């Protein structure tokens, strides 16, 4: 036997392995993500829809198919509508001023500036703070009798405000917490987009005598529109899912009424908190009902995000 055929087989085998390596290995490399997503992302999502069509509690062994029964009950549930209203109210109160402020801050940071890094770090500091810490700290600041905020307000002749007790006041307090945590983060994203705007545009505008505000309106905002749309959509989706803030605010402001109701009168119970209440905090662990509420919440997220997408696509700044 000569050595030649052996070498040929070996080479052929190696080339098969090589082709296999080129063709198949990419799939193996992206597989972990897709497998995990299917198991812990996609499957729960689809299964929620199935559960929502059943009378399904943790306590009973049988699950009765009731079609859209849970959805019908939900639409007649005043607590559900209350939670929807609260979600929209807190969402608008926290998102609109936050995004305006973030654009303005990014605009200030986009010039030549000393201590640039220091300012950026201080802006992002709140975002590094956990939501639990934020709410515990702010609950103290918003305290009725000895809170720092009421103390400062008293200089201006404002009487003692019981922040957690009222609908409007609690929504303001929660919005301040959300704004404090997210404004700097969004400002940095706007800043990144602004830095890609060609400098010549500003130089030309300066020569034409345009003010800083005019430049922001007529150059910056139109130029960073894709980023504005992106941030608006992401913030909307986030705002529709607010849960930790009202949950913890109800705990640590001492309002009573359990952690899932969002205050004794449900004055700040959001949709996500409503879902949690039905599924986990309710003595019946009503998974079917909570799943139906999740799907309606998802629907609300899609609708509100869609509306915001259409609105922000029309943002033209001051291009006249």
């Amino acid at each position: 036997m000569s050595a030649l055929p052996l070498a040929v087989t070996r080479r052929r085998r190696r080339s098969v392995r090589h082709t296999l390596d080129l063709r198949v290995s990419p799939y193996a490399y992206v597989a972990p993500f897709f497998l995990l997503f299917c198991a812990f992302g996609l499957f729960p999502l689809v299964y929620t829809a199935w559960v929502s069509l059943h009378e399904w509690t943790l306590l009973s062994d049988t699950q009765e198919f009731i079609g859209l029964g849970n959805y019908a009950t939900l639409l007649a549930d005043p607590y559900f509508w209350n939670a929807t209203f609260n979600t929209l109210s807190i969402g608008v109160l926290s998102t609109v001023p936050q995004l305006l402020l973030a654009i303005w801050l990014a605009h200030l940071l986009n010039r030549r500036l000393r201590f640039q890094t220091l300012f950026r770090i201080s802006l992002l500091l709140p975002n590094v703070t956990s939501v639990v810490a934020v709410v515990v700290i702010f609950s103290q600041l918003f305290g009725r009798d000895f809170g720092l905020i009421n103390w400062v307000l008293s200089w201006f002749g404002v009487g003692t405000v019981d922040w957690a007790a009222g609908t409007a006041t609690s929504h303001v307090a929660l919005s301040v917490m959300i704004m404090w945590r997210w404004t700097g983060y969004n400002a940095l994203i706007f800043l990144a987009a602004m830095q890609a705007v060609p400098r010549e545009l500003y130089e030309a505008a300066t020569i034409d005598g345009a003010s800083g505000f005019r430049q922001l309106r007529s150059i910056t905002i139109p130029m960073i529109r894709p980023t504005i749309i992106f941030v608006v959509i992401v913030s909307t989706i986030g705002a529709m899912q607010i849960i930790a803030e009202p949950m913890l605010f109800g705990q640590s402001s001492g309002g009573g009424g359990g952690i899932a109701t969002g205050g004794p009168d449900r004055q700040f119970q959001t949709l996500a908190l409503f879902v949690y209440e039905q599924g986990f905090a309710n003595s019946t662990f009503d998974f079917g009902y909570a799943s139906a509420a999740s799907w309606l919440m998802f629907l609300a997220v899609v609708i509100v995000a869609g509306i915001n997408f259409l609105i922000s696509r029309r943002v033209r700044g001051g291009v006249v």
Partner: protein
Amino acid sequence: MRLRYLTLIAVAFFSAFPLYYSVVVASRHNSALAQVPPPLLPGGNLLANVARVFDTVPFGLALVNSLIVAGSISVAVMFFSTLAGFAFAKLRFRGRNAMLVITVATMMVPAQLGIIPLYMLMVKLEWTGTTYALIVPALVNAFGVFFMTQYLSRALPTELLEAGRVDGCSTWGLFWHVVLPAARPAAAVLGMLTFMSAWNDYFWPLVVLNPDNPTVQVALSTLASGYVNDYVLGLAGTAIGTLPLVAVFALFGKHIIGGIMQGAVKG
């Protein structure tokens, strides 16, 4: 000009003040809180209050749990994201573009929607109450994959990979010897971002763990709920749970900010 600095200084002040104030309260007696005006300088009671936190909730265990959870998630996310990012950025295979689009699209799916069946799944797997329930679903995520894809398609020269091929490297060999070293700067940023968000995660741990085996955030929420009038205790816990992260951020903040600004815009 001057107004701009004043504004930015004011914003920096408001960003830092609540954290400072939590340390002020955490270092005092509860009696100091029933004062008008409220105290604005730290007192000398910090260590005693911190000791009280460890007596009230299993905070040592919580710190260890959080370290294990956030640490293992970060390492896994760094590894798997680089692996998938390498494939998406530099390898050719059928369906690549479609798969990348799907990956990015999954970032838009609200995770909370699936929390109930996810919990049921964990009950079936008998993972409730254990840290598996936190670690396994978080081993890799769409943001990480997207982030590394972006970075590698820009920062890793294709010629380098071709040279490796000519030298007889397999795809895995290329990943191990060429891609991983090249990905290090971005992977480090991704690791820090992942660590922070895993450390700060609140809702899912609250649902799936129990108070005997908490993470830091779950322990903090126990402190905040069970001891309603003991603000000092709550804020002392908050301070210990937050300061390590703030310290890391103060050291590496520049890189983290660079990473956020890079990763988010292209979305």
